[in-house]
């Protein structure tokens, strides 16, 4: 905790601006996060809450309509926002790697596995064809592909989905990055394969001292994989902190609702618990807290004024008036009535 974090995002905002500038979509808004070397950060949120945009922002790969409007992104002591495009290219795949959502489509059907696993080595380290191929064999072994010597010269269509995703993992770690961003890497896999893959990622993380950002909407995966958690809602981080503490005592009503909507084996409820209402239109956010219209505990103040990010306890923050320590009597009253 004392040393400098590997990655720290400070008040980072990335907005999509329409051509006339009339519509501004705050896809990532005032996000402050940090990640220690070797740590695992889970980012959860509904579809459209800005998780994937945040990942693309870190790699500076936003679509042309989006721009980073403010903030800093410190990675190993350098501000990624100060880098030129060419310098950023040397960061991507070399120091920060990413695994995408769809493993079935992530490999080029026309090239052999060895060729593709070795590609980052050739691009970033100028490895020769032969040495890249040799190292690809080793990488396949490290992602537990059986008989890597034969697999390396096969083509993507000869592999199963789980294998392909492991190969994509091998591409991710090929240049020994410090940070790996996994954007819903297991969404399209079977449950059993998912578990295998998550174990593999954890082992790789341990062996290589890799920091991991895990983007998912599956809180079960967060519980298994992550030590830090950030909950995103409408482009903002509404709560963040150590996973165990957030799970045992969520501070933000949205986190509480998310956790409450997980069905449990012991439940004998008729219906699944859902969060009422729809996520807000990011181009027309309400003046107060974005979650207020759906929040069961919303106060008058919540609708008028956006809550600041405030410390709940050691290492944990939430953006909620209910979590503000100098909460006035009204809040206490409301809280007691709800409880």
């Amino acid at each position, binding site marked *: 905790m004392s040393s400098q974090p590997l990655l720290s995002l400070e008040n980072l905002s990335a907005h999509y601006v329409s051509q006339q500038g009339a519509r501004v979509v705050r896809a990532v808004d005032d996000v402050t996060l940090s990640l220690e070397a070797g740590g695992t950060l889970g980012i959860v949120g509904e579809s459209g809450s800005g998780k994937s945009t945040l990942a693309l922002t870190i790699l500076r790969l936003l679509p042309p309509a989006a721009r980073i409007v403010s903030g800093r992104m410190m990675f190993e002591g350098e501000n990624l926002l100060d880098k030129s495009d060419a310098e950023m*290219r040397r960061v991507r795949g070399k120091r920060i790697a990413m695994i995408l959502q769809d493993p079935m489509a*992530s490999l*080029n*059907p*026309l090239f052999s596995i060895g060729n593709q696993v070795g590609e*980052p080595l050739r*691009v970033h380290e100028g490895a020769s064809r032969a040495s890249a191929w040799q190292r690809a064999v080793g990488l396949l072994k490290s992602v537990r592909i059986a008989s890597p010597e034969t697999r390396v010269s096969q083509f993507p269509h000869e592999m199963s989905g789980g294998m392909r995703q492991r190969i994509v993992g091998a*591409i991710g770690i090929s240049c020994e990055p410090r940070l790996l961003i996994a954007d819903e890497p297991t969404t399209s896999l079977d449950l059993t394969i998912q578990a295998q893959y998550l174990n593999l990622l954890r082992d790789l993380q341990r062996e290589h001292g890799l920091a991991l950002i895990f983007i998912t909407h599956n809180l079960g995966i967060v519980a298994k994989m992550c030590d830090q958690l950030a909950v995103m809602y409408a482009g903002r981080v509404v709560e963040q902190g150590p996973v165990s503490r957030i799970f045992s005592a969520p501070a933000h009503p949205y986190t509480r609702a998310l956790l409450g909507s997980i069905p449990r084996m012991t439940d004998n409820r008729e219906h699944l618990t859902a969060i009422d209402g729809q996520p807000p239109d990011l181009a027309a956010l309400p003046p107060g807290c974005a979650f207020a219209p759906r929040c069961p505990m919303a106060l008058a103040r919540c609708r008028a004024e956006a809550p600041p990010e405030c410390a709940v306890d050691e290492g944990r923050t939430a953006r909620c008036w209910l979590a503000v320590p100098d909460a006035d009597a009204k809040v206490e009253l409301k809280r007691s009535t709800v409880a």
Partner: protein
Amino acid sequence: MAVTTPPLAATAAADVSPTAFWRLKGFPLIPVMILLFIAFVAVFADVLAPHDPQVGSLARRFRPPFWQEGGSMTYLLGTDHVGRDVLSRLIFGARVSMIVGITAVLVAGGIGTLLGIVSGYLGGWADQVVMRITDTWLALPALTFAIFLAAIVGPSELNIIVILGLVYWTRYARVIRGEVLSLKQREFVRLAIVAGCSKRVIMWRHILPNVINSAVVLATLMLGVVIVTEASLSFLGVGVPPPKPAWGLMMADGKKGLMVGYWWLTVLPGLCIMLMVLSANLLGDWLRVKLDPQLRQL
């Protein structure tokens, strides 16, 4: 397509696997044989031609083909208005058609594929510029445009190749750009971006190999178009300059004789052009269906 049970005789010779069979289903055997034959003739024209295609003798002009009265086995397909052997000229004409057709298609394909990839992948102003040029190009009638260019640079075999390439690259650019637009949304391209590949590497390694199929299909289909255009230009006198034997030129030379019964001077080269173009198109159609079902609406 339903797989019908093969007859017993066919099952007996079952060393042909079902996939290999399916792949070759509907293979245009005759067109391919015709094309191979023309290619063979073009390559070995020097050996095959019985006479010099450019030297004739006025003493034996307008000899008919051998099966007609007055024909002889020395000049199998007759002689033209200056007594040159028609068969030899057809044989050397095949060489001209093949060389011009294939290289012009390669030139057009090279320019078009390159610009299509660049415009589709980079988007933005590069895309705008290339596509507006393409629109303008396509609005010009191809043949008129080619005649115009030929009138400027003057007729020669090399010029014809360049002109045809310049006239027809836009069709490639259009189709390839469309392919690239969908390819660049694919995950493997995004993974390459995320892995830090430069745009050049992505276009070269990840986009180009994936559009080669379409480019090959287009090339076979364009071969016919290009050969007809070359013949038209030669016919109009702005193509391959005489006395070089080109099929279009032979038709132009023979057209006056058509009315007075010297039919072989026009019909025979016309037949050659037709056979070659038809074969190229049939092969192209088959390849199109085999290699890329999405191109069917082309």
